């Protein structure tokens, strides 16, 4: 018993000061991409050809990137001779609509909060059911880590629950394999309505590295309306947390921008 108490003192208080202060991220962290088509050399399509998931597109002179497909591997940045594509350290990536993930030169339109009734219902207490539908356990792990004392998700009133019947929403990871399609839909149907649906990771949003595989049923948005898209491969835990807090309007205005 004394040993347990001594260990408690030693381990200390470890919850990060986020969202009061900005999260500390490694120097080499690859966050929000920055695209500047004006730097593109004439007729250069090297980044488009290097991208493993066809996230980059070039029409005429303008380059655009689908963040929903991006693996943040930076193969495009490495091959670009003129620094037209680069990755910033900005971890904030969550959006409310699929089309907002198409990045051009414009700033990303980050997620707005839920409106009126939904925010009243869930703003201070959101219970989520998580379903991994072909996820590689990286997104799952970085969702799970939000429950640790570093992020302490519970202090925001967000909790993962064991049954869809107890949940206000669904958090999906993975590209939705054919073999999980039915189980995912059944879980969705078991949620009381209204429900919030969150897609985490490029797999859940677009199929990720498995885009085009016949083994993949594809983007669940066809059957399940998605309220929040959190891109990344996997998204950093702070990217996920930022998205959840934006949705519930729980960020102070200073850290919102």
């Amino acid at each position, binding site marked *: 018993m004394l*040993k*347990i108490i001594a*260990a*408690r003192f*030693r*381990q200390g208080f470890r919850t990060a000061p986020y969202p009061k202060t900005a999260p500390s991220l*490694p*120097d*080499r*962290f*690859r966050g929000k991409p920055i695209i500047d088509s004006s730097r593109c050399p004439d007729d250069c399509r090297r980044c488009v050809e*290097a*991208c*493993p998931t066809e996230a980059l597109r070039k029409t005429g002179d303008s380059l655009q990137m689908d963040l929903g497909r991006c*693996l*943040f*591997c*930076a*193969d495009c940045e490495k091959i670009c001779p003129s620094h037209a594509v680069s990755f910033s350290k900005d971890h904030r990536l969550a959006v409310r609509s699929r089309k907002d993930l198409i990045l051009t030169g414009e700033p990303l339109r980050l997620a707005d909060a839920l409106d009126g009734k939904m925010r009243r219902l869930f703003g201070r207490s959101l219970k989520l059911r*998580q*379903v*991994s*539908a*072909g*996820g*590689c*356990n*990286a*997104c*799952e*792990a*970085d*969702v*799970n*880590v939000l*429950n*640790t*004392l*570093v992020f302490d998700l519970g202090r925001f009133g967000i909790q*993962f629950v*064991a*049954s869809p019947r107890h949940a206000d929403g669904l958090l999906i990871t*993975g*590209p939705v*394999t*054919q*073999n*999980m399609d*039915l*189980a995912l839909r059944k879980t969705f149907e078991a949620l009381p309505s209204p429900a919030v649906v969150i897609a985490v990771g490029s797999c859940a949003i677009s199929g990720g*590295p*498995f885009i085009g*595989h*016949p*083994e*993949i049923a594809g983007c669940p948005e066809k059957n399940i309306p998605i309220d929040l898209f959190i891109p990344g*491969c*996997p998204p*950093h*835990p702070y990217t996920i947390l930022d998205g959840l807090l934006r949705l519930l309007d729980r960020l102070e205005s200073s850290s919102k921008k």
Partner: protein
Amino acid sequence: MRNGETISIGSIPSLSFNEFRHEVLSDLQPGGRLATIFSLPLPNGRHRLVVVSLDGKEGVLRPCSTEISQRYPSLTADSPQFHLFERELAEQWGLHPVNHPWLKPVRFHPPYAPVPTIFSEDGAVPIPGRMPFFQVHGEEIHEVAVGPVHAGIIEPGHFRFQCHGEKVLHLEISLGYQHRGIERRLTGGPDRRTIHYMETAAGDTTVGHATAHCELVESLAGVEAPLRAQALRAVALELERLANHTGDLGALAGDVGFLPTASYCGRLRGDFLNLTALLCGNRFGRGLVIPGGTGFDVDAAIVSELMDRLNRTLADVKNAVDLLWSTPSVMGRFEDTGTLTRDHARRLGLVGVAARACGLERDVRFECPSGLFRFAHIPVSTYSSGDVFARAHVRWLEIERSARFIREQLQSLPEGPVQVPLTPFKSNTLAVSLIEGWRGEICHSAMTDDQGRFARYKIVDPSFHNWTGLALAMRNQQISDFPLCNKSFNLSYCGHDL
């Protein structure tokens, strides 16, 4: 052949089926194990079946092949190590192992070739999890079905228990929900997606699978990654082990309701992942291990920060884990729960922590080392009791030893570049690469065609060998101990399903 070597396809022994059977079974006799099995369709409509067994004592891989038709005699009754491999071949190519004792799908996908599936009369691929399960009949026997969607944030799988009261008489595990078609899609490669398939084959083992792949393609190209890159890969592999073992010890504590260690280790696991992110920007090591070397180099500042944070984190892990060993209520739940005998482990061909916890010295870093492990050694950590405690204890031993290894490597990083360009691959060649990931040995193998492209690429995640071990460990246990036993193996669903 040795780990990381190549041989021309022509020099793989090609035997008659009876010779093949005798050869393969005798390779497995003295404690050898199956590393991989795959087959390749031949122009004559038959299949070339290739088996690679691993002799850990000699540190050699023994490839051997035979030609089979759609029906061939099953070897599962001779050695249970063939069980899932034969089911896999049946599913992929419609190859029927005659007299297989338990022939069912593994991943529930249509065959790779335009052949009828052998699992249904009408040719329809069975629905995942819908198959006759092994059943126990009798008074008061009941069946418990769990999954594919589980209560926690974990991957999907289906578990079917046959119980008498609380006691589990039999557990059958049905997976396949995570099947994404990786192996099928690798044929004809490599291409720009290949390395990303490797990094997501089992996302928590990004460094392990990426390293196995990179050593494989480097051997096919006949180049070796620079020594500095090999050292960085080894450091990242051991960091991956530290993070996952620490997380597992915390989760084991959580499963017996001992919250202090559960809580501390959850945080500490993240601290180790952040060390990997210090190297490459990503907590799982994405982008770090690439064909020809590593995607990132380190400077003195990174090395010193890494060292400093490693030491601090390790001291906290020691403090948190020590609580487990000195708390009788934890030890009471760990000891004699989910016991596997050494003999079972050997016969099933278990690998990794699960095998070492049964006293088997199976660790490819020691048995047939590749990369930096040829020059720098880590002692093999074993324990003999085969229970949850043994699997926890082996993890703790490995945490200490991996941390020491990382420190040594960081203090003596070789100088030089971290990347070499790859040259075109040798044609008509077999390459096999084994890496000891945190769960156990990861085996990648490839056969190239006339142009040096992948004619067949086979991945064997350690989980593929070990799921049967979990099922066996649950026999005569309380069903309420399933989460604890499951966590003590902590196997990969997507690594199995690919």
